[in-house]
């Protein structure tokens, strides 16, 4: 045997030929063993009753909740208890929020997947693929009273009359601000004008404002809130585009002034986590975000307890209006295997939305206000929320929160405007002095008109 036939130079070691044989045999054997039935965990574990009959499996897909304990409770206790009572198995799967639409699109393409998908924005693009949820809405309203407008206008398409989702809860988006830093300015962020007055001083002390001018959802929501409080809207109640108006120019002019006075260029690269990081790092003096950011910050920075407050959306010349951080939209696919059970579960969710609110740390609030009339007391019993002065803000959140697309309904055109981030682009070009406010508004209006025309041609608005 020569050196060329063996590993290394020592004769008698494993030969190449033996090595190849062993490796090939190992690969084949391993693959074969792996292919044997039962060698891998099955995709959908069989759910059998004590008598051996197969139980129906209801599958839910939703984004992971910012409060980790909420998912543990929802997946492991709440839905399982309902499953036992209804002799059905419930499986809850989670994906990151950014991937939810891709997974939903994949299920539509395959016409197979989960029974219920929990979206956090109006899934109007899937209207043709979901059942009409009006029956669930009517039954829930019979039992629980009227649904909040911020939720109702996010799940109904007035043009087709279809209710393309069902909302059991929603997430308000208040202002979270550092009371210790703002104390020196002598004002509180009650109005947008107050924020502008304090901005320069806050930035000078190294604590700028954190309002995104970027292509993420938080930026879209914050700037739509600013516009709405200036009386500027993308569409009217009849889904006509009305963005090209004086109020929008005023809002954009104000946004650019606010940026120059109180923000840094970081806001052009804002991502969904930026608000939280900005507050937790102790740099930011104000953000617009659901209170989950407050909890996360105080978990890692307990020394900030009592130094962060939660307030309603700022008031503008036209009033106090704020977009929600999210609205839950549970949608049952037309190809769901258990649509009947899915409807029953959605009604169960609505009926227990007070429990859902509590377990979410009051990040989520019921879409049916009568399901939890004691929100301020619940929040008052929570030391973190009490320290932030949040109880009153949460109790009144339904009054100042408006849906995306206000004063009209959420529709696929509005969804496109948000997904293409036309509003942050409009603000950013003015903030960066690339366009004047009227030019930026006209440019945005042309693109919005084009989107609306396309969806109007498709008969969806």
């Amino acid at each position: 045997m020569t050196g060329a036939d063996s590993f290394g130079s020592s004769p008698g070691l494993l030969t190449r030929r033996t090595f190849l044989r062993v490796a090939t045999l190992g690969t084949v054997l391993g693959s074969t063993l792996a292919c044997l039935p039962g060698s891998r965990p099955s995709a959908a574990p069989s759910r059998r009753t004590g008598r051996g009959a197969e139980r129906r499996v209801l599958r839910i897909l939703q984004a992971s909740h910012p409060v980790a304990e909420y998912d543990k409770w929802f997946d492991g206790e709440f839905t399982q208890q309902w499953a036992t009572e209804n002799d059905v198995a419930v499986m809850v799967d989670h994906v990151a929020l950014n991937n939810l639409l891709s997974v939903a699109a994949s299920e539509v393409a395959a016409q197979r997947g989960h029974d219920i998908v929990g979206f956090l924005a109006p899934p109007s693009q899937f209207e043709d693929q979901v059942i009409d949820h009006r029956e669930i809405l009517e039954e829930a309203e019979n039992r629980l009273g009227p649904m909040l407008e911020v939720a109702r206008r996010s799940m109904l398409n007035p043009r087709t009359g279809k209710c393309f989702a069902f909302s059991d809860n929603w997430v308000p988006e208040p202002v979270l601000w550092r009371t210790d830093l703002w104390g020196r300015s002598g004002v509180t962020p009650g109005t947008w004008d107050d924020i502008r007055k304090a901005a320069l001083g806050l930035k000078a002390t190294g604590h700028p404002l954190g309002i995104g001018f970027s292509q993420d959802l938080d930026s879209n929501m914050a700037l739509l809130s600013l516009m709405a409080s200036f009386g500027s809207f993308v569409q009217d109640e009849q889904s006509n585009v009305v963005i090209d108006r004086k109020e929008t120019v005023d809002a954009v002019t104000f946004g650019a002034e606010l940026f120059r006075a109180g923000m840094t260029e970081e806001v052009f690269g804002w991502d969904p986590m930026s608000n939280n990081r900005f507050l937790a790092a102790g740099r930011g003096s104000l953000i617009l975000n659901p209170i989950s950011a407050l909890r996360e910050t105080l978990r890692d920075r307990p020394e900030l307890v009592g130094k962060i407050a939660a307030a309603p959306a700022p008031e503008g010349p036209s009033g106090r209006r704020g977009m929600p951080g999210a609205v839950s939209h549970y949608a049952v696919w037309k190809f769901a295997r258990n649509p009947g059970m899915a409807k029953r579960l959605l009604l169960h969710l609505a009926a227990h939305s007070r429990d859902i609110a509590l377990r979410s740390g009051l990040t989520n609030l019921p879409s049916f206000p009568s399901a939890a009339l004691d929100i301020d007391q619940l929040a008052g019993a929570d030391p973190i929320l009490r320290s932030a002065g949040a109880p009153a803000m949460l109790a009144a959140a339904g009054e100042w929160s408006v849906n995306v697309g206000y004063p009209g309904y959420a529709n696929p055109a509005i969804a496109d405007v948000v997904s293409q981030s036309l509003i942050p682009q409009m603000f950013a070009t003015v903030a960066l002095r690339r366009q004047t406010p009227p030019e930026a508004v006209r440019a945005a209006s042309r693109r919005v008109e084009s989107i609306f025309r396309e969806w109007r041609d498709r008969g969806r608005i």
Partner: protein
Amino acid sequence: MRRRGGTGAATTYLVVGAFASVLAFPFYWMFITAFKTGHDLYDPANVPVIFNESPTLEHVRQLLRDTPYPHWVENTMFVGLSVVAVTLAVSLPAAYALARYSEPCVRRVGAAIFLSSLVPPTLLFLPLSRLVSDVRLHDSLWSLVLVYPSFTVPGSTWLLTGFFKTIPADIEEAALVDGCSQLRALRSVILPVSAPAIVCVAIFSFTLATNEFVYGVTFITSAAQKTISTGLPSHLVRGDVLSWGPLMAGVLMPSLVMGLLYTGLVTWLMSWWVGARS
């Protein structure tokens, strides 16, 4: 002369050290983030590249306690090794044919294999969802074993083709003269000589398969069926809350294992190859 040698060595160490520092920094960053307390991580007054407070194992505990991380590791290994097996089984004969036959149709097939690798997964995941559903592999790891070779096979075939072309045909012809069949010549002569290329392709395919995200996140939704690349973001990126510590711990552990494995494997392979050819 000695002084010049010393200067040369110093320069070498300086350049290598600089490169090593740049390459090792992501691992270092993962390491300190995985073991820093949340407070240490977020306080801007702290120096970010050192431990300002005592290290903690809490993030590792959280990863192991709150997620099915061991399942994800197991699934990743299963998918990675299966894809390597499928890739080699398809690429080896394909590359051999492309290297040894020069008919026009062979060249066209070679070009087609190459072109197929240019279609991005973001375009393919929707039609492939239908396919995966039709063969009833939705939410099964086998869907990934089925689909991943679609991007590992083209690259691997081209790598192996290039290598096979460097092997003199004389060796193979000698084997044929000695009475080997074409298949036997491939198995007994070509493959042993090609071991370095095969290991290279195995590493290439394994890395591609274990890093893939788009197919993984759309075809697999059950927590217990996920791989590391899809499980970590699905369970540790919660809306706008990102659990940096557990996320980095989850990435650091397999990175270190794979890094050591690759380094050891390549070192062993090169020493074996050099020894075998001498």
